[in-house]
């Protein structure tokens, strides 16, 4: 006995120099009566994590509810809720904790019933490894295949096949080898990077903690020893930097930080990042924590990042490495598991939560349902509870994402019912859809319906006024680009462009200028009626005309933006050579030269172009819209 215990003890020389292993998160899955609860009870019991008072309770309850005769029923240690204890089954995901001298563990215990795909997927979503139990007498069952498939689907890369009740097949090596071989064959293509089969008896403890003398033909490690030593790679650290903004940290006017958990990669001061989906660029200045500023942060760290400039970023945006930004799309293909009794219907609107972003969206098409037992695709009009499907998803605004195969944090999403707030679906993004090629007739139909209820924004007219050459069109264009990237519905009415068509009959007399502004304001009001954010860019030199444009719109929808640049500065810039012509007398009635400009007295926004770049001013305008609740 001493010898066997000795051989199990970790060799001190091996322990030195190895990096400490973080907590291992694994899930256990198996069919009913495979002995999962007994196995976990056995691990807890044998690692001395069951304390005296719990043991006393267990002995009492074993006599009352137990199924193991005179022995203690270790399964009762973990079958928690009264409801399931009475039914004798495990009905939800339970989390247990174990600590051995080598490692700490979190175990997600998930039930094996047909109807509980949802629970297994839940447990798998935060696990690095799956322990799959099979009954040595029964071998690989349909459920076993399903569990392996779901583990693979959820991105688990490490699997232990625990062939339980090996005592009930006379510790037969032949039986064990046959089961292991069948499992290997049926999990081919599931992308597991390690797979270890271990013959065990949860009830009697063989190969659970220590190697068993009953299986001399098995030379591998005991289950616990294997779990204590396995290295689950930190792939996320090697990937490019991404951090979804969780919360904008603004204690006072002097500090603005972006708080979040790093989803992948590393970041350090000086790194260039972009805010997605808007695309605004900045540099990391500081990594702030209560323990002081950090030289760098990596995947999994919760930090607050301070940037070198003020940009428009808020909860839901993703900060990403500037040289390898994430993808942005509003149409995606995904695998979806349905979690609710009310089935998924294509075309119904749900709230999609991915990272820290929530956007309304619809499943526009169910491509097919996937039978989790046979892995075959079948036609489906809807998905019911525990169904898995391949779907197309259309969102009301573009989101920053990564395929699930690359990132759990930016590729996994949930669907929330907007009426009941229930979490009804969980999805894994495969790829973006290219609308031009993927949209079929029917989907256009859906899109038209979706467009009707789509306006997650309040209409507004941003009325840019200022001298020719002040920068109205430049800033208007930047604002529209930024808004468009944020998924907002916009239209720019440019004074010069209108004169090519709608206003082509008008000159530059005072009356014609007034009519020019009147027509532009009518069009702006119509577009606002249609729900758009209109960006009107006209010199509009007269207060009276601007007041009329304002009066044409409901209170609060007209936002006058004074693009302020001195005549001298505009003359210096003179982007269209007009000042030169006016100064030379070739143009008559040119505002600022020989026609007056009545500056706004109380504009909603006053942009001083001498003090800031067009990009910064555009950010300012976007922030103002947000502040006014034009969009969230």
């Amino acid at each position, binding site marked *: 006995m001493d010898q066997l*215990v000795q051989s199990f003890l970790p060799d001190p020389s091996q322990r030195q120099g190895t990096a400490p*292993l973080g907590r291992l998160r694994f899930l256990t899955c198996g069919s009913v009566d495979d002995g999962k609860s007994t196995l976990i009870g056995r691990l807890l019991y044998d690692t001395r994590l069951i*304390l005296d008072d719990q043991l006393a309770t267990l002995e009492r309850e074993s006599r009352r509810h137990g199924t193991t005769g005179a022995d203690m029923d270790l399964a009762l240690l973990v079958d928690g809720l009264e409801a399931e204890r009475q039914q004798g089954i495990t009905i939800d995901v339970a989390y247990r904790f174990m600590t051995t001298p080598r490692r*700490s563990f979190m175990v997600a215990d998930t039930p094996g019933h047909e109807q509980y795909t949802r629970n297994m997927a839940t447990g798998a979503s935060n696990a690095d490894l799956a322990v799959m139990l099979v009954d040595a007498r029964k071998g690989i069952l349909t459920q076993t295949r399903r569990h392996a498939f779901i583990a693979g689907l959820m991105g688990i890369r490490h699997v232990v096949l625990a062939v339980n009740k090996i005592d009930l097949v006379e510790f037969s090596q032949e039986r064990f080898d046959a089961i292991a071989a069948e499992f290997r064959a049926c999990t081919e293509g599931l992308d597991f990077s390690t797979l270890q089969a271990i013959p065990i008896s949860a009830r009697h403890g063989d190969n659970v903690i220590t190697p068993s003398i009953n299986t001399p033909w098995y030379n591998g490690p005991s289950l616990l020893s294997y779990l204590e030593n396995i290295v689950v790679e930190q792939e996320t650290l090697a990937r490019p930097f991404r951090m979804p903004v969780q919360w904008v940290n603004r204690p006072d006017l002097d500090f603005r930080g972006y*708080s979040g958990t790093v989803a992948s990669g590393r970041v350090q001061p000086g790194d260039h990042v972009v805010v997605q989906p808007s695309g605004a660029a900045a540099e990391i200045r500081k990594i702030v924590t209560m323990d002081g500023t950090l030289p760098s942060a990596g995947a999994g760290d919760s930090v607050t990042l301070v940037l070198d400039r003020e940009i428009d970023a808020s909860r839901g945006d993703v900060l990403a490495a500037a040289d390898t930004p994430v993808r942005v799309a509003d149409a995606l293909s995904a695998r979806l598991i349905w979690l609710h009794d009310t089935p998924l219907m294509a075309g119904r609107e749900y709230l999609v939560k991915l990272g820290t972003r929530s956007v309304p969206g619809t499943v526009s098409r169910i491509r097919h349902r996937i039978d989790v037992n046979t892995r075959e695709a079948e036609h489906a009009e809807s998905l019911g509870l525990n169904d898995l499907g391949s779907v197309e998803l259309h969102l009301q605004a573009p989101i920053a994402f990564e395929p699930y195969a690359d990132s759990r944090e930016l590729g996994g999403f949930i669907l929330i019912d907007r009426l009941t707030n229930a*979490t009804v679906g969980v999805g894994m993004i495969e790829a973006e859809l290219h609308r031009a090629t993927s949209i079929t007739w029917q989907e256009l139909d859906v899109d038209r319906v979706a467009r009707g209820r789509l306006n997650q924004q309040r209409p507004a007219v941003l009325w840019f006024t200022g001298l020719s050459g002040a920068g109205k069109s430049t800033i208007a264009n930047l604002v529209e680009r930024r808004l468009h990237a944020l998924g907002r519905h916009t239209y720019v009415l440019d004074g010069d462009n209108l004169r090519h068509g709608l206003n082509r009959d008008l000159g530059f007399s005072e009356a014609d200028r007034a009519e020019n502004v009147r027509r532009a304001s009518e069009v702006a009001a119509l577009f606002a009626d249609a729900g758009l954010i209109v960006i009107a860019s006209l010199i509009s030199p007269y207060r009276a005309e601007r007041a009329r444009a304002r009066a044409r719109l409901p209170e609060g929808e007209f936002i006058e933006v004074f693009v302020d640049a001195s005549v001298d500065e505009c003359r210096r810039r003179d982007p269209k050579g007009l000042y030169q012509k006016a100064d030379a007398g070739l143009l008559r009635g040119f505002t600022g030269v020989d026609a007056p400009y009545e500056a706004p007295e109380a504009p909603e926004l006053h942009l001083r172009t001498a003090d800031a770049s067009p990009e910064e001013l555009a950010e300012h305008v976007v922030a103002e819209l947000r502040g006014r609740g034009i969009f969230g």
Partner: protein
Amino acid sequence: MNALAPYPDALAVTLPSATAHLRQLEAESIHIIREVAAECRNPVFLYSIGKDSSVLLHLIRKAFYPSRPPFPLLHIDTGWKFREMIAFRDETVRRYGLDLIVHTNEEARAQGINPFDHGSFYTHAMKTEALKAALRHHAFDAAFGGARRDEEKSRAKERIFSFRTAAQQWEPKDQRPEFWHLYNGRVAPGESMRVFPLSNWTELDVWQYIQSEDIPIVPLYRAAPRPVVERDGNLIVVDDGRMRLHPGEVPEERMVRFRSLGCYPLTGAIESAARTLPEIVGEMLATRTSERGTRLIDKDEANSMEHKKREGYF
């Protein structure tokens, strides 16, 4: 050798390196705390003054630094907490400049409801009902608590975001599945979330974190000579003159400390000489009883926590 040999004893007193997984736990808890601040309208921190609350408060301060926590603390004061707990609470609030709401079921107090005469009704009135009334009064839609999944069997299946109906009931079948680090905190008016950022921490993690972060805790966790009476196998510290002594009971001074804190007449102390954190952690590793074993209210029956939780007990 037989296969039933338990884990070798020689190893049971050493520890795995804690830093890697404590850092991970800390980051995950901070993530959860920030999600609530970002998504819930009116959150509150149910501050119970104990070690788990001390850790949670520390994490909340970290989550928002350099900002102050953007929500208040709520303490349900039964009127029977240890005096040192109340002093510690007030000192903590002062030290960090926090907003504290203290709520007591004044009606029950006026009726003289007390732990000596009213047993489990006392707990129901002064804790469960008081908590529900305070949450309702302030219309909090999310309440942070320090509960952990390792504390008790019925908590092993608890969600991190635990949904409560408008009647503040917990329904096991009504809970939302939680994937990755995505939490759904959306509730209709009147409904609420109890949020447990320490769900995945163990008692050992809590102590190791307190040690490594040097987090202040109530002195009652450290051994000291205290006046004690032994009652039904529990060591009850006589904290003030309201303690009712049974005939023949005479308080005697013993070296004791607490693993878990609650109302003083209902919380058993353990005999211990552990004054420092390393001593406390060492004692914990060698212990053979569970943490809540010293809480008198949990012992009624096997499912007593489940029943209390359904009613709205934290």
